[in-house]
């Protein structure tokens, strides 16, 4: 794993991508910390983080796009397949290298609360836990976009898929908010979601029956729940989407000024889930 990690890390800093991502994040952080904290005389730098996290929609795909798409494009994936390494080691090596790139701006941002504390009382605990949440948000996004890169051979498509996935994450709460909050609307929205899920299952396993069974089982469960307690469904879809939104979670974490473990665990779960999906996709290519 360390060989893959070293090779990847070197690659990010031997071309522009690593520097561009770091610069983007630091420029955003610099601007907003200056506006909020130095001009607005507000002691908590973490209030800038939800805004800074918007630039991740661009910075993360820039870094992740090459991870697997490039290997496939250059046909170097055959080398990785024949090295005495497990697929999970290869994926983890690459993931950790990307996370090291994002550790650079995070570590630099860790200096900001110290500078601010020169001018008055600053809650270092909430600042650093917020930075941890920010870093874990990077981790979740990197995993999502790495998965996108493992789906394609083209870096450009990988980047577009990555940006699209993150933008959907961002606007999902807005979109869900536009839907009526009636029970039947929630029911229909969930049904649509199940249909999408079944489609994704079909695209992965290329088997009608597995996809169909998944859809039927989920839809059956949904229907039974709807029959039993219709009132539960009112506004449920909005709450469901809001709970899934990775950007809202950071907002929540920062505004509560509490160490909200659910947010941290949520980010870690997303990172784990998409890393697992990536391992499966890379492994699957061998079988197709």
């Amino acid at each position, binding site marked *: 794993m*360390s*060989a*893959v990690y*070293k*090779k990847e890390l*070197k*690659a990010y800093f*031997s*071309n522009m991508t690593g520097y561009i991502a770091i610069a983007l994040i630091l420029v955003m952080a610099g601007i907003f910390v200056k506006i909020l904290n130095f001009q607005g005389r507000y002691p908590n730098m973490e209030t800038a983080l939800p805004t800074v996290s918007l630039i991740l929609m661009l910075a993360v795909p820039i870094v992740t796009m090459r991870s697997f798409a490039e290997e496939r494009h*250059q*046909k*170097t*994936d*055959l*080398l990785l*397949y*024949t*090295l*005495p*390494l*497990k697929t999970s080691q290869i994926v983890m090596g690459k993931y950790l290298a990307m996370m090291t790139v994002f550790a650079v701006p995070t570590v630099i941002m860790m200096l900001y609360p110290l500078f601010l504390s020169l001018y008055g009382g600053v809650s270092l605990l909430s600042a650093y836990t917020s930075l941890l949440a920010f870093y874990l948000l990077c981790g979740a996004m990197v995993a999502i976009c790495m998965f996108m890169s493992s789906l394609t051979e083209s870096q450009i498509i990988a980047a577009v898929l990555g940006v699209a996935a993150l933008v959907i994450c961002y606007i999902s709460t807005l979109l869900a908010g536009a839907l009526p909050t009636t029970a039947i609307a929630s029911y229909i929205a969930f049904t649509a979601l199940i249909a999408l899920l079944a489609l994704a299952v079909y695209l992965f396993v290329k088997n009608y029956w597995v996809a169909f069974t998944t859809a039927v089982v989920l839809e059956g469960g949904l229907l039974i729940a709807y029959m039993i307690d219709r009132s539960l469904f009112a506004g449920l879809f909005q709450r469901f989407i809001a709970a899934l939104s990775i950007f809202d979670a950071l907002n929540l974490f920062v505004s509560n000024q509490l160490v909200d473990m659910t947010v941290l665990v949520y980010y870690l779960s997303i990172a784990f889930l998409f890393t697992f999906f990536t391992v499966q996709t890379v492994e699957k290519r*061998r*079988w197709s």
Partner: protein
Amino acid sequence: MIEVRNLTKKYGDHTVVNHLNFTIEPGRIYGFLGPNGAGKSTTMNMITGCLAPTAGQVLIDGHDIYEDAVAARRCIGYLPEIPPVYPDMTPEEYLRFVAEAKGIKASAVFEEIYRVMEETDITDMRHRLIKNLSKGYKQRVGIAQAMLGEPKLIILDEPTVGLDPRQISGIRELISRLGQSRTIILSSHILAEVSAVCDHVMIINRGNLVASDTLENIRRDNMPENRIAMTVRANPDSIRTILSDIPGVIGYDIAGNPEDSNLFDIDIEVEADREIREALFFAFAEKHFAVRKLAKSELSLEEIFFRLTDASAVISDEEELYSAEGEEEEEPVCCVPAPDDREDGEETEEEEKHPSRFGRKKAVEEEYTPLFQAGKSDDKEDEQ
């Protein structure tokens, strides 16, 4: 070393590799021969674990390539068809990465990298970016990568494609040298390459193994009948008289030699397993007729190859091969220059653009004939 059992690969209804069964013994050089599209690369990818078979099993030194993948892969060094190199790395960085990934001890990595760089003659290029190297050097970096860690088995998929004649002979020497201590599987569509370096040849066509034996045995088994080719300075009547007195002669054809009107070429059919060459020599010598040539007529490996791989399949595949490789004209595919040194540039250009218009015959000639004739005449000298 390798046991391949019932290996099959299907894409939908299309069977690319069809129930292959073979065993690879240690310490020999195996040649995997077949027209393009025969399933060579697919088979190699399955043996090395890059591609999962639809059915069947591959055991490397007792380890199943899927069940016990890491242990099995430790035994293999693989050079795929396209060398898997990272263009933004230098050969040294690249080899260091592969060495570390192969789990070579940190203290031994440096020495090991230099050993393979020396063996493949890329030490001078170690600080250049791989993207700036020529195709030949990239290929050698790929071979160096496969040699790292001294794997017991080295698999090379068309290792000399795109190299110049000097590099090809260098790579062949390297392969022969490596073959003394290791098992090597080499795939190629170039017959001369296989006949030059391999102990054992496997011919694959449309996913089926059509022959697997030593070159001599393949030649012998595919020899249709016992025939002798002679060129003598004598008149046809005397030739008939002499031949009618020699036991074992079934029939013969006499034809005038195109080079000299006093010479005659004779094609003699002999009873199976009967050796009459010395009798023929003395019979003609006794009458003071000069014997200019006397040899067993043999099918060339090329002819055997065509016979085994079914002419019709070869035609379409060969055309595909030629049009695909025609674009890389600056780097010759074979080690001997094309037979006719055409100076008419326009005509050549036209041919490169539309290879199919000029038919398969020419493509095959350029690919195979010049290569093979060298080997063929050598054989004949031996016979004499």
